[in-house]
């Protein structure tokens, strides 16, 4: 009796799976049909839309061709080389910032030097004119050697 019940249950299980799978299959088929309808409908776009899509495609293909050949097409339609400054604007900007920092450093150094020499002239025992006079050169050299 138990065996018969078990068998019946198994048969019911198999039947419910069948119903489920056919339901899923029919839904899948319906989804595919809807997709086919959408596909057919997508081919009926307005002339303007088709033209604009074509323009976009042509620009993309041109860009691709330029990439392959080593040059690149900009968004405004102009063509530039792959190693051009316009393409590598980040590098150009970094370079300019670095150059400005180096120039500033050099300028600060030269200003410091001027300030030091001014302080030396003012702090020296000799008058500033003595450093211009050629006659004082030997005694200045001796003083520097001593220092």
């Amino acid at each position: 009796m138990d065996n018969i019940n078990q068998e019946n249950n198994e048969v019911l299980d198999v039947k419910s799976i069948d119903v489920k799978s056919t339901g899923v299959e029919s839904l899948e088929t319906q989804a595919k049909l809807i997709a086919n309808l959408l596909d057919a409908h997508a081919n009926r776009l307005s002339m303007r839309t088709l033209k604009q899509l074509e323009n976009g495609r042509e620009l993309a293909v041109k860009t691709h061709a330029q990439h392959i050949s080593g040059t690149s097409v900009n968004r405004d339609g102009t063509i530039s080389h792959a190693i051009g400054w316009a393409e590598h604007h980040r590098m150009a900007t970094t370079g300019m910032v670095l150059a400005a920092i180096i120039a500033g450093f050099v300028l600060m150094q030269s200003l410091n030097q001027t300030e030091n020499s001014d302080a030396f002239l003012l702090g020296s025992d000799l008058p500033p004119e003595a450093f211009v006079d050629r006659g004082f050169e030997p005694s200045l050299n001796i003083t520097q050697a001593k220092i």
Partner: protein
Amino acid sequence: MASSQELSNFLRDVERRAFKQTVYAVRDDHAALDIVQDAMLKLAEKYADKPAAEYPMLFQRILQNTMRDYWRRQKVRNLWTTLLSSFGAGKDGEEDFDPLDTIDVEDENENPMAQLERSQTMQLIEKAIEKLPTRQREAFVLRYWEDMDVAETALTMGCSQGSVKTHCSRAVHTLAALLQKQGLGSKAIAHLGTES
């Protein structure tokens, strides 16, 4: 590396579907055109060295990401528009009309009544698809329209295969229910399918 001819062929094959998919997502033809064109350019610029076989998945991923960027920008723009709307005066429905926008590339041999019936049915289907939640619509489009398998769809959507199956199942059930409500049962769709 794919040749320019291969890229051109691929884009020609996919551009119309991509446009319609984007329209369903953003509900604006002009924005959809911009998004598709942007996606095409990004594919050509960033993935010029990839083989043509990888293009379908890459393009779909770029397209989905470009749509998300659009929504983000739209969110910010809407915020500002709402804030500033009281200062500006609207045009009150005055829009530029161009006859080219309304001329469809139809089959001239088809019966006008059949054309009308078909376009009405398609409108119902399109509206039902627009009503689907974003992730479900994405899954449906990629799995059934783009004919990707579950693994590819999962990779493109950036989620697990289980999620794809769930999204697809829910999408198909919701679509079936929505269309049934409009009187478009599976038989009617099958009938339309055989006609097209």
